[in-house]
């Protein structure tokens, strides 16, 4: 939480500086504290740290040379994309190098016939779909941060988005990843086909939070853009009525392209911000997007409208054109900044629960909100049970910070208790290391630790994130000059 004093690594920082300067042009190496400031945290600003050096390679070969050099000198390396992560996963190591990959941002190839795109890791998520649009194709996973976040970061986080109920997460939309090992060797995982030789290395790399390797190239699948998409906006007078309506849509055999819920506070904030015409009197709002062929969408709009009405919708509105559709989404997409205007700071949580537990969990969150005396707005991916409670607090008040953190922990424990997970899309990072013990037992945690060691025996790649290090902890700490990595 606090900035650690800038200490010199045991290997002479001078030697490291010399080596990095021989690999990278001067403008790609940042050493001065002030110039480093923009990199001191990701989007979870509760945790801040400055590295010894920031390396911003412009080619994969430079990134490879940086890794080789750090490996030789035993220096920790933290990979970073756009820094939009929400778990301090890309937070720097004070005795290491922050390896920023955002400059590797070329779209290498789009093959409209094979429906694939080959990308450098720093290409933003949105840029892929923009480039594919001329062929009538797009890249399905669409995190709300898609303007800024990188495909390398998406692979590391196994990012999801509004579309993933129907079209899957990052892991379902990848064909190959070129990765640098911590030793700086280049290896291709996956390939041209839907499966590759031997063990499914792509599965283990996707969502590994930069702990197993550094991604320098990604090949993704592209999908044909649906002929049409329309969105249905429905207000309900209780969260449980809205939750039941969601279950009924799925039971009717319809998988919407997106299905999002906001509670009363979130919808007020979003409406103040976006003026989308949301029903201010509703206690819960559903946004249901149906996509497909003209005929299919028309059929599904009728069916879902009937289901919502039968479940007591207090208002119902269907987008008539693209402009109205994007207006209706605007409120949802800007829900985070909208809540940001209601409070000096907010803490975004990310748990997943079985869908039928929605009203129980939201009731509990409301009880906890009173207990901790902090307001909370709930935005979530209703279709897949991924919650984003936004806990409002004031970072200038240390007591509020402590209460906000404890509130967050309670929500994650609750998610596990009802059969869910401590993170649906943001990852574990530094933030949720302790909650890993809620979701997994000793044997599973040992397995994760061993997987980490299989790829990175010296534990120098993004140390202290993602998995709690149990048995090697003591040995690791005893190594000279190694930073305490949170175990």
């Amino acid at each position, binding site marked *: 939480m606090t900035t650690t004093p800038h200490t010199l690594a045991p290997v002479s920082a001078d030697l490291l500086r010399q080596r990095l300067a021989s690999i990278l042009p001067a403008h790609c190496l940042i050493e001065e504290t002030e110039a480093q400031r923009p990199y001191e945290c990701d989007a979870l600003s509760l945790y801040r740290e400055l590295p010894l050096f920031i390396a911003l390679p412009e080619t994969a070969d430079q990134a490879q040379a940086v890794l080789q050099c750090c490996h030789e000198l035993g220096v920790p390396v933290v990979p970073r994309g756009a820094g939009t992560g929400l778990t301090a996963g890309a937070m720097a190591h004070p005795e290491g190098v922050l390896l920023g990959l955002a400059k590797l941002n070329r779209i290498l190839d789009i093959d409209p016939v094979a429906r694939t795109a080959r990308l450098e890791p720093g290409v933003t998520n949105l840029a892929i779909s923009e480039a594919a649009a001329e062929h009538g194709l797009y890249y399905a996973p669409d995190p709300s941060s898609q303007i800024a976040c990188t495909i390398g970061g998406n692979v590391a986080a196994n990012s999801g988005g509004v579309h993933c109920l129907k079209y899957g997460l990052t892991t379902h939309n990848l064909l190959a990843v070129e990765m640098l090992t911590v030793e700086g060797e280049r290896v291709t995982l996956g390939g041209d086909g839907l*499966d590759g030789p031997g063990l499914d290395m792509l599965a283990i790399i996707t969502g590994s939070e930069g702990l197993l390797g550094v991604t320098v190239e990604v090949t993704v699948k592209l999908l044909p853009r649906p002929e049409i998409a329309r969105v249905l906006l429905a207000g309900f007078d209780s969260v449980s009525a809205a939750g039941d309506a969601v279950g009924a849509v799925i039971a009717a055999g319809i998988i919407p392209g997106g299905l999002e819920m906001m509670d009363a506070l979130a919808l007020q904030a979003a409406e103040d911000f976006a003026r989308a015409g949301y029903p201010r009197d509703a206690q819960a709002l559903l946004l249901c997007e149906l996509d497909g062929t003209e005929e299919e969408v028309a059929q599904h709009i009728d069916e879902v409208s009937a289901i919502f009405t039968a479940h007591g919708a207090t208002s119902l509105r269907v987008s008539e054109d693209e402009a109205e559709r994007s207006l209706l989404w605007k409120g949802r997409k800007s829900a985070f900044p909208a809540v940001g205007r209601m409070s000096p700071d907010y803490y975004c949580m990310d748990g997943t629960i079985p869908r039928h537990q929605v009203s129980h969990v939201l009731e509990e969150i409301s009880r906890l909100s009173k207990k901790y005396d902090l307001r909370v707005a709930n935005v979530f991916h209703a279709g897949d049970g991924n919650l984003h409670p936004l806990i409002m607090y004031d970072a200038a008040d240390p007591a509020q910070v402590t209460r906000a953190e404890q509130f967050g922990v309670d929500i994650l424990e609750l998610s596990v208790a009802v059969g869910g997970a401590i993170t649906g*899309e943001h990852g574990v990072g530094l933030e949720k290391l302790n909650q890993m013990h809620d979701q997994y037992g000793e044997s599973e945690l040992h397995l994760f630790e061993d997987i980490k060691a299989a790829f990175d025996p010296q534990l120098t790649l993004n140390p202290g994130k993602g998995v709690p290090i149990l048995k090697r902890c003591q040995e690791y700490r005893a190594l000279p000059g190694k930073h305490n990595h949170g175990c």
Partner: protein
Amino acid sequence: MAADTALGLQEAVVEAASDQRPLRITAGGTKTHAVGRDCEGTPLNVGGHTGIIDYQPSELMLQARAGTPVAELAAAVASEGQVLPFEPPRYGGNATLGGTLACNLSGPGRPWLGSIRDATMGVGLINGRGEQLALGGKVMKNVAGYDASRLQAGALGCLGLITDVTLKVVPAPEQTLTLTFEMDAQQALQTMSEKAATPRPLTAACWLDGRLYLRLAGAASAVQATAASWGGETLTAEHPFWADLRDMSLPFFKGAQPLWRQSTRATEPLQAETGCLIDWAGQQRWYRSSDAPAVEAGHVVLFAGGDRNTEVRGELDPVQQRLQLRLKQTFDPQGIFNPGRLYSWM
């Protein structure tokens, strides 16, 4: 008949580990002489570990023990108007859930509907130390820890014994209809790619013996409108073509010639017109020939027949081989599970 035999399986693994005695995991026994290499070891049968543990149609979630026949699962979800999205082969009703995940074989819908790997949310696994692990979970979105569940897909039981699997299921399509067209392989490859790039409810595309088969499935309105605009001859929903393709019971798959499977991109040139079946809109090619087809892209597996003591999955580059071997050691430090089934060195 549902039966939980996990404790017995666990004891058997602990015993084998203490004797450092290799185990050969068997289930329905349907793929023992295909998919991977021959392997030696004391048979350990998971076939008796059966039954659905949890099925919640409104959550699109199904959890079942590994020895449960796939046919039984398919029937259970069908009664709720749902399907297993990956269309697993049934192989005469004997194929099991665990064997299906271990082999990661998918039916013709894979490019659109995904594989069992894609549908897997969590697995129970007994590792080489005899510990029972619960990996992943029961919700679709979970990024806590490494995705060790999906890693079991295609591992052929080399990483451990799968005791149960939690899957995502999906609603059954309202209507299914197949169009067929007479054309040669080149023309079919091009047509498949063109059709797959349009936003229409295509869920399978296969070419065999001078005929292209396109399957449409989804909302009835979309299926009918698409069929009307694409033309071709219509096969009824009851026609067994796709089920026979899925179960590899078409005449193409019979015979003594080695069977090769290529997983590749749709634009890959075809190696031969005869003795070839193109599936997955060009992304999976099957060849019957005595020698491996010389391919430009993707990878080739000696799927069935031929010499099953060779590296049936080809060679790996040294870095990848090192990483895969280390992963194997992580799960199975003494190398007791299915030694050599995936690669001679694993």
